[in-house]
């Protein structure tokens, strides 16, 4: 197992946190932009940039409802994003050994 096996898109700490947070939701659930920002602690500009990159890769979908001040953007992890995170976790486990098992278990509980 080499470091190349780690998905560079997810390997960035901020994006890793976004993907893991969204993976904690059940399949098909969405999370609002505001709540995600609150949980991750990024500025709106940074968060939008990371979300766009993940969306371009097909790892998540975003949906905007309403307009103006009542507008609400929600994001959800796609099955592709979930699979990418699983692959990333497996790769990390292969590199680091069984110390990763706790995190994998925690992730699988969220599915």
């Amino acid at each position, binding site marked *: 197992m080499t470091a190349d096996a780690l998905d560079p898109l997810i390997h960035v*700490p901020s994006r890793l946190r976004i993907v*893991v947070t969204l993976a*904690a939701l059940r399949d098909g659930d*969405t999370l609002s932009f505001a709540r995600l920002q609150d949980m991750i602690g990024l500025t709106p500009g940074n968060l939008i940039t990371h979300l766009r990159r993940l969306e371009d890769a097909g790892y998540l979908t975003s949906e905007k409802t309403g307009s103006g001040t009542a507008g609400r953007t929600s994001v959800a992890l796609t099955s592709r994003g979930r699979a990418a995170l699983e692959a990333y976790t497996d790769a990390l486990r292969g590199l680091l050994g069984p110390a990763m098992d706790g995190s994998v278990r925690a992730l699988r*509980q969220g599915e």
Partner: protein
Amino acid sequence: MNGTRDANETAPADEGGLALKAAAAALLEQTGRQAQRQFEVKKPLLSLIGAAVILVIYGVVWFSVRGQHPCGGPSLAAIAVVYALVIVMSIAGGTVLRRATTGLGGRALRGERAYGAADRPRRVRGGHCGRTGRLAESRRRTRLCRRRRRERIRGTGLGVGVRRRGLLHRAPRSCRRSGLAASSRMMVRA
């Protein structure tokens, strides 16, 4: 010599890479746990406090009625304490639920509604859907009644000159019951 130097040069890079991966693993685990905790609705601590509050309520009522001969029921103060505790617990439960479900959508929110606490959104949406459904059903019945009436008028060959009262009495029961008499009269007149 060269080999030794190479090994010495690559070792820190490997260690650094390994440290980064370990940091990524730690971040993965920590973020996963945090997210799980924040989305969790059934907080064990809240359940424990709720159980303790129920015990306190029982204790308060028991102290209030203890030694009464004949039994006159709990005092007003005891009842006030019980109500206050129930209200505080309801508010605390509602706050925890609201915090856990803020910003969530999709199946999660439906699940929380099934859990029985996100009452307000359900009423708003359910009410709207219910009203829409009832209106649609009412409109459908109205259209059906009008069509039947038109067919009856055509069938009798009376057309516009038909007596209103008689026609209304012969109207289907569902039309009479649904309060469509006025609209029917208007239609017959037209």
